[in-house]
Protein backbone atom coordinates (compact mmCIF):
# COMPACT_ATOMS: atom_id res chain seq x y z
CA UNK A 1 0.00 0.00 0.00
CA UNK A 2 2.72 2.42 1.01
CA UNK A 3 6.26 2.01 -0.12
CA UNK A 4 9.09 4.35 0.74
CA UNK A 5 12.57 3.80 -0.58
CA UNK A 6 15.56 5.81 0.54
CA UNK A 7 13.51 8.95 1.12
CA UNK A 8 15.46 12.14 1.70
CA UNK A 9 14.21 15.62 2.32
CA UNK A 10 16.79 18.35 2.79
CA UNK A 11 16.00 22.00 3.38
CA UNK A 12 18.13 25.00 2.64
CA UNK A 13 17.98 27.13 5.74
CA UNK A 14 19.32 30.62 5.99
CA UNK A 15 21.52 30.87 9.04
CA UNK A 16 23.19 33.76 10.76
CA UNK A 17 24.85 34.35 14.09
CA UNK A 18 23.01 36.64 16.54
CA UNK A 19 23.66 40.38 16.66
CA UNK A 20 22.97 43.46 14.57
CA UNK A 21 26.23 43.30 12.66
CA UNK A 22 25.61 39.73 11.57
CA UNK A 23 22.05 40.66 10.65
CA UNK A 24 23.28 43.49 8.42
CA UNK A 25 25.81 41.24 6.81
CA UNK A 26 23.17 38.61 6.15
CA UNK A 27 21.13 41.14 4.15
CA UNK A 28 23.93 41.29 1.61
CA UNK A 29 25.50 37.90 1.86
CA UNK A 30 23.49 34.95 3.07
CA UNK A 31 24.93 31.69 4.17
CA UNK A 32 22.74 28.68 3.80
CA UNK A 33 23.01 25.41 5.56
CA UNK A 34 21.30 22.24 4.58
CA UNK A 35 19.03 20.67 7.18
CA UNK A 36 18.46 16.98 6.72
CA UNK A 37 14.88 16.58 7.91
CA UNK A 38 14.68 13.07 6.49
CA UNK A 39 17.91 11.40 5.50
CA UNK A 40 17.34 8.13 3.77
CA UNK A 41 14.52 6.07 5.24
CA UNK A 42 12.80 3.06 3.71
CA UNK A 43 9.77 1.05 4.75
CA UNK A 44 6.77 -0.81 3.37
CA UNK A 45 3.27 -0.74 4.82
CA UNK A 46 0.64 -3.31 3.88
CA UNK A 47 -3.05 -2.46 3.33
CA UNK A 48 -4.98 -2.21 6.57
CA UNK A 49 -1.90 -1.89 8.75
CA UNK A 50 -1.76 0.54 11.67
CA UNK A 51 1.69 2.00 12.08
CA UNK A 52 2.95 4.49 14.64
CA UNK A 53 5.71 6.96 13.84
CA UNK A 54 7.75 7.68 16.94
CA UNK A 55 10.56 10.10 17.44
CA UNK A 56 11.52 13.20 19.39
CA UNK A 57 10.56 16.68 18.18
CA UNK A 58 12.21 17.52 14.90
CA UNK A 59 12.90 13.88 14.11
CA UNK A 60 11.30 14.11 10.67
CA UNK A 61 7.94 12.47 11.41
CA UNK A 62 5.76 15.30 10.13
CA UNK A 63 8.02 15.84 7.12
CA UNK A 64 7.62 12.18 6.20
CA UNK A 65 3.83 12.41 6.55
CA UNK A 66 3.79 15.51 4.37
CA UNK A 67 5.84 13.79 1.70
CA UNK A 68 3.49 10.80 1.83
CA UNK A 69 0.46 13.06 1.43
CA UNK A 70 2.01 14.96 -1.48
CA UNK A 71 2.42 18.29 0.30
CA UNK A 72 6.19 18.19 0.09
CA UNK A 73 8.39 17.10 -2.74
CA UNK A 74 11.11 14.69 -1.65
CA UNK A 75 14.70 15.72 -2.35
CA UNK A 76 15.36 12.18 -3.48
CA UNK A 77 14.05 8.67 -3.07
CA UNK A 78 10.95 6.88 -4.22
CA UNK A 79 7.53 7.13 -2.61
CA UNK A 80 4.39 5.27 -3.63
CA UNK A 81 1.00 5.34 -1.98
CA UNK A 82 -1.48 2.85 -3.41
CA UNK A 83 0.29 3.03 -6.75
CA UNK A 84 0.39 6.83 -6.88
CA UNK A 85 3.36 9.15 -6.69
CA UNK A 86 2.13 11.57 -4.00
CA UNK A 87 3.87 14.68 -5.27
CA UNK A 88 1.90 14.56 -8.52
CA UNK A 89 -1.19 15.22 -6.38
CA UNK A 90 -3.59 13.55 -8.81
CA UNK A 91 -7.26 13.85 -7.89
CA UNK A 92 -7.55 10.07 -7.73
CA UNK A 93 -4.77 10.00 -5.14
CA UNK A 94 -6.09 12.91 -3.08
CA UNK A 95 -9.50 11.24 -2.90
CA UNK A 96 -7.92 8.18 -1.28
CA UNK A 97 -6.08 9.90 1.51
CA UNK A 98 -6.68 12.20 4.43
CA UNK A 99 -4.42 14.12 6.76
CA UNK A 100 -5.46 15.33 10.17
CA UNK A 101 -3.13 17.61 12.04
CA UNK A 102 -3.80 18.13 15.71
CA UNK A 103 -2.24 21.57 15.59
CA UNK A 104 -4.06 22.89 12.55
CA UNK A 105 -7.70 22.97 11.62
CA UNK A 106 -9.67 22.95 8.43
CA UNK A 107 -13.12 23.63 9.92
CA UNK A 108 -14.62 26.94 8.82
CA UNK A 109 -14.15 28.94 11.99
CA UNK A 110 -17.35 30.98 12.08
CA UNK A 111 -19.70 28.36 10.66
CA UNK A 112 -21.05 25.10 12.08
CA UNK A 113 -19.01 21.97 11.20
CA UNK A 114 -21.98 20.77 9.13
CA UNK A 115 -21.05 23.45 6.57
CA UNK A 116 -17.46 22.22 6.33
CA UNK A 117 -18.79 18.69 5.83
CA UNK A 118 -21.07 19.93 3.04
CA UNK A 119 -18.19 21.80 1.41
CA UNK A 120 -15.99 18.69 1.53
CA UNK A 121 -18.81 16.61 0.11
CA UNK A 122 -18.89 18.91 -2.91
CA UNK A 123 -15.11 19.04 -3.28
CA UNK A 124 -14.69 15.26 -3.03
CA UNK A 125 -17.70 14.58 -5.28
CA UNK A 126 -19.32 12.29 -2.73
CA UNK A 127 -22.73 11.07 -3.94
CA UNK A 128 -25.60 12.30 -1.73
CA UNK A 129 -26.71 8.88 -0.55
CA UNK A 130 -23.21 7.81 0.41
CA UNK A 131 -22.62 11.15 2.10
CA UNK A 132 -25.72 10.77 4.22
CA UNK A 133 -24.76 7.28 5.25
CA UNK A 134 -21.19 8.28 6.12
CA UNK A 135 -22.33 11.32 8.03
CA UNK A 136 -24.94 9.39 10.01
CA UNK A 137 -22.30 6.88 10.96
CA UNK A 138 -19.79 9.53 11.99
CA UNK A 139 -22.39 11.42 13.98
CA UNK A 140 -23.35 8.29 15.89
CA UNK A 141 -19.86 6.95 16.52
CA UNK A 142 -18.29 10.25 17.46
CA UNK A 143 -21.41 11.59 19.22
CA UNK A 144 -21.55 14.71 17.10
CA UNK A 145 -25.32 15.24 17.20
CA UNK A 146 -25.12 18.30 19.43
CA UNK A 147 -21.99 19.73 17.88
CA UNK A 148 -22.42 19.95 14.13
CA UNK A 149 -24.94 22.78 14.34
CA UNK A 150 -22.83 25.07 16.51
CA UNK A 151 -20.25 27.46 15.03
CA UNK A 152 -16.84 25.81 15.23
CA UNK A 153 -15.41 28.64 17.29
CA UNK A 154 -17.86 27.82 20.10
CA UNK A 155 -16.70 24.20 20.39
CA UNK A 156 -14.18 22.99 22.94
CA UNK A 157 -10.85 21.68 21.67
CA UNK A 158 -11.94 18.07 22.06
CA UNK A 159 -15.27 18.65 20.34
CA UNK A 160 -13.53 20.45 17.53
CA UNK A 161 -11.03 17.64 17.05
CA UNK A 162 -13.85 15.12 16.74
CA UNK A 163 -15.39 17.31 14.04
CA UNK A 164 -12.00 17.72 12.34
CA UNK A 165 -11.71 13.97 12.17
CA UNK A 166 -15.23 13.65 10.77
CA UNK A 167 -14.56 16.37 8.15
CA UNK A 168 -11.51 14.46 6.98
CA UNK A 169 -13.45 11.19 6.68
CA UNK A 170 -16.43 12.44 4.64
CA UNK A 171 -14.90 10.94 1.48
CA UNK A 172 -14.08 7.62 3.16
CA UNK A 173 -10.32 7.66 2.59
CA UNK A 174 -8.38 4.42 2.37
CA UNK A 175 -5.22 5.89 3.82
CA UNK A 176 -5.22 7.92 7.02
CA UNK A 177 -2.35 10.15 8.03
CA UNK A 178 -2.82 11.34 11.58
CA UNK A 179 -0.33 13.86 12.91
CA UNK A 180 -0.78 14.14 16.66
CA UNK A 181 -4.56 13.88 16.49
CA UNK A 182 -5.01 13.78 20.25
CA UNK A 183 -2.74 16.64 21.23
CA UNK A 184 -4.14 18.71 24.07
CA UNK A 185 -7.15 16.47 24.62
CA UNK A 186 -8.19 15.13 28.01
CA UNK A 187 -7.79 11.45 28.80
CA UNK A 188 -11.36 10.40 28.09
CA UNK A 189 -11.48 12.31 24.80
CA UNK A 190 -8.18 10.70 23.79
CA UNK A 191 -9.73 7.31 24.49
CA UNK A 192 -12.81 8.17 22.41
CA UNK A 193 -10.63 9.20 19.48
CA UNK A 194 -8.53 6.06 19.73
CA UNK A 195 -11.51 3.75 19.85
CA UNK A 196 -13.05 5.48 16.88
CA UNK A 197 -9.88 5.46 14.77
CA UNK A 198 -9.36 1.78 15.47
CA UNK A 199 -12.91 0.88 14.55
CA UNK A 200 -12.70 2.92 11.32
CA UNK A 201 -9.55 1.02 10.41
CA UNK A 202 -11.15 -2.33 11.16
CA UNK A 203 -14.44 -1.69 9.40
CA UNK A 204 -13.00 -0.05 6.30
CA UNK A 205 -9.71 -1.89 6.07
CA UNK A 206 -8.02 1.51 5.94
CA UNK A 207 -4.28 1.86 6.32
CA UNK A 208 -3.14 4.32 8.94
CA UNK A 209 -0.02 6.07 10.04
CA UNK A 210 -0.10 7.89 13.33
CA UNK A 211 2.35 10.18 15.03
CA UNK A 212 1.75 11.03 18.63
CA UNK A 213 3.56 12.13 21.72
CA UNK A 214 1.14 10.18 23.85
CA UNK A 215 2.52 6.67 24.10
CA UNK A 216 -0.92 5.43 25.11
CA UNK A 217 -2.18 6.35 21.63
CA UNK A 218 0.56 4.33 20.01
CA UNK A 219 0.22 1.40 22.41
CA UNK A 220 -3.55 1.25 21.90
CA UNK A 221 -3.55 1.68 18.14
CA UNK A 222 -0.34 0.53 16.55
CA UNK A 223 0.93 -3.05 16.61
CA UNK A 224 3.89 -1.83 14.55
CA UNK A 225 6.06 1.19 15.16
CA UNK A 226 8.66 2.98 13.09
CA UNK A 227 11.10 5.03 15.10
CA UNK A 228 12.60 8.00 13.30
CA UNK A 229 15.39 9.96 14.88
CA UNK A 230 17.25 12.83 13.25
CA UNK A 231 15.90 11.84 9.89
CA UNK A 232 17.05 8.24 10.19
CA UNK A 233 15.03 5.12 10.76
CA UNK A 234 16.24 3.57 13.99
CA UNK A 235 13.63 0.86 14.53
CA UNK A 236 10.87 -0.83 12.57
CA UNK A 237 8.89 -3.63 14.13
CA UNK A 238 6.50 -4.62 16.90
CA UNK A 239 6.03 -2.35 19.85
CA UNK A 240 6.55 -5.18 22.37
CA UNK A 241 9.77 -6.22 20.72
CA UNK A 242 11.00 -2.65 20.88
CA UNK A 243 10.35 -2.48 24.61
CA UNK A 244 12.09 -5.82 25.04
CA UNK A 245 15.12 -4.60 23.18
CA UNK A 246 15.54 -1.23 24.83
CA UNK A 247 14.54 -2.22 28.33
CA UNK A 248 14.75 -5.96 28.83
CA UNK A 249 14.21 -5.49 32.59
CA UNK A 250 10.80 -5.93 34.14
CA UNK A 251 9.34 -3.92 36.93
CA UNK A 252 8.12 -5.54 40.10
CA UNK A 253 5.67 -3.29 41.90
CA UNK A 254 5.22 -4.10 45.59
CA UNK A 255 2.47 -2.87 47.87
CA UNK A 256 3.38 -3.55 51.47
CA UNK A 257 1.44 -3.95 54.68
CA UNK A 258 3.94 -1.88 56.60
CA UNK A 259 6.93 0.31 55.83
CA UNK A 260 10.25 -1.45 55.27
CA UNK A 261 13.80 -0.16 55.30
CA UNK A 262 15.52 0.53 52.01
CA UNK A 263 18.21 -1.96 53.00
CA UNK A 264 15.78 -4.84 52.87
CA UNK A 265 14.77 -3.96 49.27
CA UNK A 266 18.24 -3.50 47.84
CA UNK A 267 19.21 -7.19 47.62
CA UNK A 268 16.10 -7.92 45.52
CA UNK A 269 16.96 -5.64 42.59
CA UNK A 270 17.46 -2.06 41.54
CA UNK A 271 15.10 0.21 43.50
CA UNK A 272 13.36 2.61 41.12
CA UNK A 273 11.08 4.28 43.65
CA UNK A 274 10.39 3.61 47.29
CA UNK A 275 8.07 5.38 49.68
CA UNK A 276 6.72 3.89 52.90
CA UNK A 277 4.46 1.13 51.66
CA UNK A 278 5.07 0.96 47.92
CA UNK A 279 8.24 0.08 46.10
CA UNK A 280 9.15 -0.41 42.46
CA UNK A 281 12.06 -2.71 41.64
CA UNK A 282 13.75 -3.23 38.32
CA UNK A 283 14.99 -6.73 37.67
CA UNK A 284 16.32 -8.64 34.65
CA UNK A 285 13.65 -10.67 32.95
CA UNK A 286 15.13 -14.04 33.84
CA UNK A 287 15.34 -13.05 37.50
CA UNK A 288 11.68 -12.09 37.81
CA UNK A 289 10.55 -15.43 39.25
CA UNK A 290 13.29 -15.54 41.83
CA UNK A 291 12.74 -11.96 42.87
CA UNK A 292 9.02 -12.44 43.24
CA UNK A 293 9.38 -15.49 45.45
CA UNK A 294 12.05 -13.84 47.56
CA UNK A 295 9.95 -10.72 47.97
CA UNK A 296 6.95 -12.77 48.99
CA UNK A 297 8.93 -14.68 51.59
CA UNK A 298 11.01 -11.85 53.02
CA UNK A 299 8.67 -8.84 52.93
CA UNK A 300 5.15 -8.09 54.21
CA UNK A 301 3.71 -8.02 50.69
CA UNK A 302 0.06 -7.15 50.30
CA UNK A 303 -0.03 -6.98 46.55
CA UNK A 304 2.50 -7.58 43.77
CA UNK A 305 2.48 -6.91 40.01
CA UNK A 306 5.02 -7.40 37.25
CA UNK A 307 5.01 -4.76 34.50
CA UNK A 308 6.97 -3.45 31.56
CA UNK A 309 8.74 -0.12 31.98
CA UNK A 310 6.48 2.81 31.00
CA UNK A 311 6.68 3.48 27.26
CA UNK A 312 7.64 7.11 27.81
CA UNK A 313 10.71 5.96 29.67
CA UNK A 314 11.56 3.36 27.06
CA UNK A 315 11.36 5.98 24.33
CA UNK A 316 13.47 8.56 26.10
CA UNK A 317 16.06 5.89 26.77
CA UNK A 318 15.99 4.88 23.11
CA UNK A 319 16.48 8.47 21.96
CA UNK A 320 19.24 9.09 24.48
CA UNK A 321 20.92 5.90 23.32
CA UNK A 322 20.88 6.88 19.66
CA UNK A 323 22.08 10.38 20.51
CA UNK A 324 25.03 8.95 22.39
CA UNK A 325 25.76 6.67 19.46
CA UNK A 326 25.71 9.61 17.05
CA UNK A 327 28.02 11.62 19.24
CA UNK A 328 30.43 8.73 19.42
CA UNK A 329 30.42 8.42 15.65
CA UNK A 330 30.83 12.19 15.33
CA UNK A 331 33.84 12.17 17.66
Amino acid at each position, binding site marked *: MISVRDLRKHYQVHKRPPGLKAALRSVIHRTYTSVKAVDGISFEIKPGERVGFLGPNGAGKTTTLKVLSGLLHPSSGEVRVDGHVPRHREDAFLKKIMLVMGQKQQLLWDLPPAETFE*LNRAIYDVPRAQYKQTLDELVTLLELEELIGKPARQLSLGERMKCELAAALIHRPKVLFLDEPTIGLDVSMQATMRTFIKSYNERNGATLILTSHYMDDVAALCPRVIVIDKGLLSYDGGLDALVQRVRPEKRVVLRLNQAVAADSLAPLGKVVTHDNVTAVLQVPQDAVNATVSRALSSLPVQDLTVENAPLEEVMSELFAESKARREKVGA
Partner: protein
Amino acid sequence: MLRRYLRLLGVQLRASSLLAMQYRGDFVIEGIISLFWTATALAPLFVVYRERESIAGWSFGEALLVIGWFTLLQGILEGAINPSLTGVVEHIRKGTLDFVLLKPADAQFLVSTARFLPWRSINVLAGLGLFVYGFHLIGRAPSLVGVLASLVLLGTSVLLLYSLWILTVAAAFYVVKVDNLTYFFTSIFDAARWPASVFRGVLAFVFTFVIPLAVMTTFPAEAMLGRLPWTSLVWAVVGSLLFAFLSRRVWLHSIGHYTSASS
Protein backbone atom coordinates in the same frame (compact mmCIF):
# COMPACT_ATOMS: atom_id res chain seq x y z
CA MET B 1 -15.59 19.62 -15.31
CA LEU B 2 -17.11 23.09 -15.72
CA ARG B 3 -20.33 21.90 -14.10
CA ARG B 4 -18.38 20.53 -11.15
CA TYR B 5 -16.64 23.85 -10.59
CA LEU B 6 -19.89 25.79 -10.95
CA ARG B 7 -21.37 23.53 -8.28
CA LEU B 8 -18.34 24.13 -6.08
CA LEU B 9 -18.71 27.87 -6.59
CA GLY B 10 -22.32 27.51 -5.51
CA VAL B 11 -21.32 25.73 -2.31
CA GLN B 12 -18.65 28.33 -1.53
CA LEU B 13 -21.09 31.19 -2.18
CA ARG B 14 -23.56 29.51 0.10
CA ALA B 15 -21.05 29.35 2.95
CA SER B 16 -20.20 33.03 2.44
CA SER B 17 -23.83 34.10 2.48
CA LEU B 18 -24.44 32.05 5.62
CA LEU B 19 -21.55 33.87 7.20
CA ALA B 20 -22.80 37.24 5.99
CA MET B 21 -26.23 36.56 7.45
CA GLN B 22 -24.72 35.46 10.71
CA TYR B 23 -23.18 38.89 11.05
CA ARG B 24 -25.99 40.93 9.57
CA GLY B 25 -25.07 43.86 11.84
CA ASP B 26 -22.19 44.26 9.42
CA PHE B 27 -24.67 45.20 6.73
CA VAL B 28 -25.38 48.56 8.34
CA ILE B 29 -21.76 49.23 9.21
CA GLU B 30 -20.45 48.18 5.81
CA GLY B 31 -23.12 50.32 4.16
CA ILE B 32 -22.16 53.41 6.13
CA ILE B 33 -18.46 52.80 5.54
CA SER B 34 -18.85 52.33 1.82
CA LEU B 35 -20.98 55.48 1.47
CA PHE B 36 -18.34 57.33 3.43
CA TRP B 37 -15.60 56.10 1.09
CA THR B 38 -17.59 57.01 -1.98
CA ALA B 39 -17.99 60.50 -0.57
CA THR B 40 -14.27 60.80 0.15
CA ALA B 41 -13.52 59.53 -3.34
CA LEU B 42 -15.63 62.41 -4.69
CA ALA B 43 -14.17 65.12 -2.46
CA PRO B 44 -10.95 65.82 -4.42
CA LEU B 45 -12.96 65.95 -7.64
CA PHE B 46 -15.21 68.70 -6.25
CA VAL B 47 -12.15 70.61 -5.09
CA VAL B 48 -10.42 70.42 -8.47
CA TYR B 49 -13.45 71.12 -10.64
CA ARG B 50 -14.35 74.22 -8.60
CA GLU B 51 -11.23 75.83 -10.09
CA ARG B 52 -11.63 74.76 -13.70
CA GLU B 53 -14.13 73.45 -16.25
CA SER B 54 -12.25 70.42 -17.48
CA ILE B 55 -9.12 68.47 -16.67
CA ALA B 56 -7.11 66.78 -19.40
CA GLY B 57 -10.19 66.93 -21.61
CA TRP B 58 -12.62 65.49 -19.04
CA SER B 59 -15.61 67.53 -17.87
CA PHE B 60 -16.95 67.10 -14.35
CA GLY B 61 -19.77 64.82 -15.47
CA GLU B 62 -17.37 62.67 -17.48
CA ALA B 63 -14.91 62.43 -14.61
CA LEU B 64 -17.79 61.22 -12.44
CA LEU B 65 -18.09 58.22 -14.76
CA VAL B 66 -14.47 57.33 -14.03
CA ILE B 67 -15.14 57.63 -10.31
CA GLY B 68 -18.27 55.55 -10.83
CA TRP B 69 -16.19 52.78 -12.38
CA PHE B 70 -13.63 53.15 -9.65
CA THR B 71 -16.31 52.78 -6.96
CA LEU B 72 -17.95 49.86 -8.73
CA LEU B 73 -14.66 48.02 -9.14
CA GLN B 74 -13.76 48.78 -5.57
CA GLY B 75 -17.00 47.07 -4.55
CA ILE B 76 -16.07 44.00 -6.57
CA LEU B 77 -12.49 44.08 -5.33
CA GLU B 78 -13.48 44.30 -1.69
CA GLY B 79 -16.52 42.09 -1.93
CA ALA B 80 -15.33 39.26 -4.14
CA ILE B 81 -11.57 39.33 -4.60
CA ASN B 82 -9.91 40.81 -1.53
CA PRO B 83 -11.50 38.65 1.21
CA SER B 84 -10.55 35.33 -0.35
CA LEU B 85 -7.08 36.31 -1.28
CA THR B 86 -6.15 37.89 2.03
CA GLY B 87 -7.35 34.54 3.34
CA VAL B 88 -4.54 32.89 1.38
CA VAL B 89 -1.95 34.99 3.17
CA GLU B 90 -3.50 33.86 6.44
CA HIS B 91 -3.42 30.23 5.23
CA ILE B 92 0.25 30.48 4.38
CA ARG B 93 1.12 32.08 7.70
CA LYS B 94 -0.78 29.50 9.75
CA GLY B 95 0.18 26.57 7.56
CA THR B 96 -3.45 25.67 6.85
CA LEU B 97 -2.85 26.01 3.12
CA ASP B 98 -1.94 22.34 3.47
CA PHE B 99 -5.62 21.53 3.75
CA VAL B 100 -6.37 23.41 0.52
CA LEU B 101 -3.59 21.57 -1.32
CA LEU B 102 -4.88 18.22 -0.07
CA LYS B 103 -8.23 18.76 -1.78
CA PRO B 104 -8.88 17.13 -5.15
CA ALA B 105 -9.74 20.43 -6.85
CA ASP B 106 -7.78 23.32 -8.28
CA ALA B 107 -6.14 25.17 -5.41
CA GLN B 108 -6.36 28.58 -7.08
CA PHE B 109 -10.07 28.10 -7.61
CA LEU B 110 -10.62 26.99 -4.03
CA VAL B 111 -8.77 29.91 -2.46
CA SER B 112 -10.22 32.47 -4.86
CA THR B 113 -13.80 31.53 -4.08
CA ALA B 114 -13.37 30.89 -0.38
CA ARG B 115 -14.91 34.10 0.90
CA PHE B 116 -17.29 36.75 -0.38
CA LEU B 117 -18.54 39.81 1.44
CA PRO B 118 -21.94 40.40 -0.15
CA TRP B 119 -22.55 43.57 1.84
CA ARG B 120 -19.74 45.24 -0.05
CA SER B 121 -21.91 45.14 -3.14
CA ILE B 122 -23.33 48.42 -1.85
CA ASN B 123 -20.31 50.02 -3.52
CA VAL B 124 -21.47 48.59 -6.82
CA LEU B 125 -24.82 50.31 -6.33
CA ALA B 126 -23.04 53.56 -5.44
CA GLY B 127 -21.04 53.25 -8.68
CA LEU B 128 -24.24 52.81 -10.69
CA GLY B 129 -25.66 55.89 -8.94
CA LEU B 130 -22.64 57.90 -10.05
CA PHE B 131 -23.18 56.80 -13.67
CA VAL B 132 -26.75 58.10 -13.55
CA TYR B 133 -25.67 61.39 -11.97
CA GLY B 134 -22.74 61.78 -14.39
CA PHE B 135 -24.90 61.33 -17.49
CA HIS B 136 -27.48 63.66 -15.97
CA LEU B 137 -24.78 66.37 -15.80
CA ILE B 138 -23.56 65.59 -19.31
CA GLY B 139 -27.14 65.90 -20.47
CA ARG B 140 -27.52 62.75 -22.57
CA ALA B 141 -27.83 58.99 -22.24
CA PRO B 142 -25.10 56.52 -23.22
CA SER B 143 -25.53 54.62 -26.47
CA LEU B 144 -26.40 50.93 -26.44
CA VAL B 145 -23.11 50.04 -28.12
CA GLY B 146 -21.30 52.12 -25.52
CA VAL B 147 -22.99 50.26 -22.68
CA LEU B 148 -22.27 46.87 -24.26
CA ALA B 149 -18.62 47.77 -24.81
CA SER B 150 -18.35 48.95 -21.21
CA LEU B 151 -19.80 45.64 -20.02
CA VAL B 152 -17.08 43.78 -21.92
CA LEU B 153 -14.58 46.09 -20.27
CA LEU B 154 -16.12 45.35 -16.89
CA GLY B 155 -15.11 41.74 -17.53
CA THR B 156 -11.58 42.67 -18.54
CA SER B 157 -11.22 45.03 -15.58
CA VAL B 158 -12.30 42.40 -13.08
CA LEU B 159 -9.97 39.88 -14.70
CA LEU B 160 -7.11 42.38 -14.50
CA LEU B 161 -7.80 43.20 -10.86
CA TYR B 162 -8.02 39.53 -9.99
CA SER B 163 -4.79 38.70 -11.83
CA LEU B 164 -2.95 41.56 -10.14
CA TRP B 165 -4.17 40.26 -6.80
CA ILE B 166 -3.05 36.73 -7.60
CA LEU B 167 0.39 38.10 -8.46
CA THR B 168 0.48 39.98 -5.16
CA VAL B 169 -0.61 36.94 -3.20
CA ALA B 170 1.88 34.72 -5.00
CA ALA B 171 4.55 36.92 -3.46
CA ALA B 172 3.31 35.71 -0.08
CA PHE B 173 4.82 32.31 -0.81
CA TYR B 174 8.25 33.88 -0.83
CA VAL B 175 7.94 36.68 1.73
CA VAL B 176 5.49 35.58 4.36
CA LYS B 177 4.58 39.07 5.55
CA VAL B 178 2.71 40.32 2.54
CA ASP B 179 0.38 42.73 4.39
CA ASN B 180 2.48 45.69 3.30
CA LEU B 181 2.25 44.57 -0.27
CA THR B 182 -1.52 44.48 -0.11
CA TYR B 183 -1.58 48.02 1.30
CA PHE B 184 0.72 49.07 -1.49
CA PHE B 185 -1.64 47.52 -3.99
CA THR B 186 -4.71 49.24 -2.51
CA SER B 187 -3.03 52.63 -2.50
CA ILE B 188 -1.96 52.23 -6.11
CA PHE B 189 -5.47 51.21 -7.04
CA ASP B 190 -6.53 54.53 -5.56
CA ALA B 191 -4.93 56.29 -8.52
CA ALA B 192 -7.53 54.64 -10.75
CA ARG B 193 -10.10 57.20 -9.67
CA TRP B 194 -8.53 59.76 -12.00
CA PRO B 195 -8.97 59.71 -15.78
CA ALA B 196 -5.82 58.14 -17.19
CA SER B 197 -4.93 61.19 -19.28
CA VAL B 198 -4.24 63.07 -16.05
CA PHE B 199 -1.03 61.10 -15.74
CA ARG B 200 1.93 61.96 -17.96
CA GLY B 201 5.28 60.46 -18.78
CA VAL B 202 6.51 57.55 -16.70
CA LEU B 203 3.32 57.31 -14.65
CA ALA B 204 1.22 57.11 -17.82
CA PHE B 205 3.36 54.23 -19.01
CA VAL B 206 3.28 52.42 -15.66
CA PHE B 207 -0.46 52.79 -15.22
CA THR B 208 -1.17 51.51 -18.70
CA PHE B 209 1.26 48.66 -19.11
CA VAL B 210 2.66 47.63 -15.75
CA ILE B 211 -0.33 48.16 -13.49
CA PRO B 212 -3.08 48.72 -16.00
CA LEU B 213 -5.24 51.12 -13.99
CA ALA B 214 -6.10 53.14 -17.06
CA VAL B 215 -7.57 50.08 -18.68
CA MET B 216 -9.68 49.34 -15.62
CA THR B 217 -11.53 52.61 -15.08
CA THR B 218 -10.82 55.07 -17.87
CA PHE B 219 -11.46 52.64 -20.75
CA PRO B 220 -14.97 51.66 -19.62
CA ALA B 221 -15.83 55.28 -18.91
CA GLU B 222 -14.68 56.24 -22.41
CA ALA B 223 -16.63 53.32 -23.85
CA MET B 224 -19.80 54.61 -22.17
CA LEU B 225 -19.16 58.05 -23.64
CA GLY B 226 -18.77 56.40 -27.04
CA ARG B 227 -15.25 57.68 -27.59
CA LEU B 228 -13.13 54.59 -26.96
CA PRO B 229 -11.45 53.40 -30.18
CA TRP B 230 -12.28 49.79 -31.10
CA THR B 231 -8.61 48.99 -31.12
CA SER B 232 -8.41 49.90 -27.43
CA LEU B 233 -11.26 47.53 -26.67
CA VAL B 234 -9.55 44.66 -28.43
CA TRP B 235 -6.30 45.63 -26.79
CA ALA B 236 -7.94 45.55 -23.35
CA VAL B 237 -9.38 42.08 -23.95
CA VAL B 238 -6.10 40.65 -25.21
CA GLY B 239 -4.09 42.40 -22.51
CA SER B 240 -6.26 41.17 -19.67
CA LEU B 241 -6.17 37.61 -20.98
CA LEU B 242 -2.39 37.82 -21.12
CA PHE B 243 -2.31 39.14 -17.59
CA ALA B 244 -4.56 36.30 -16.43
CA PHE B 245 -2.33 33.77 -18.14
CA LEU B 246 0.79 35.28 -16.60
CA SER B 247 -0.72 35.30 -13.11
CA ARG B 248 -1.79 31.67 -13.50
CA ARG B 249 1.78 30.67 -14.41
CA VAL B 250 3.19 32.58 -11.47
CA TRP B 251 0.64 31.03 -9.14
CA LEU B 252 1.47 27.48 -10.25
CA HIS B 253 5.15 28.21 -9.89
CA SER B 254 4.62 29.59 -6.38
CA ILE B 255 2.62 26.56 -5.30
CA GLY B 256 5.46 24.39 -6.53
CA HIS B 257 7.87 26.47 -4.50
CA TYR B 258 5.65 26.14 -1.42
CA THR B 259 5.34 22.39 -1.64
CA SER B 260 9.01 21.85 -2.20
CA ALA B 261 10.24 24.24 0.47
CA SER B 262 7.98 24.54 3.49
CA SER B 263 7.87 22.21 6.43
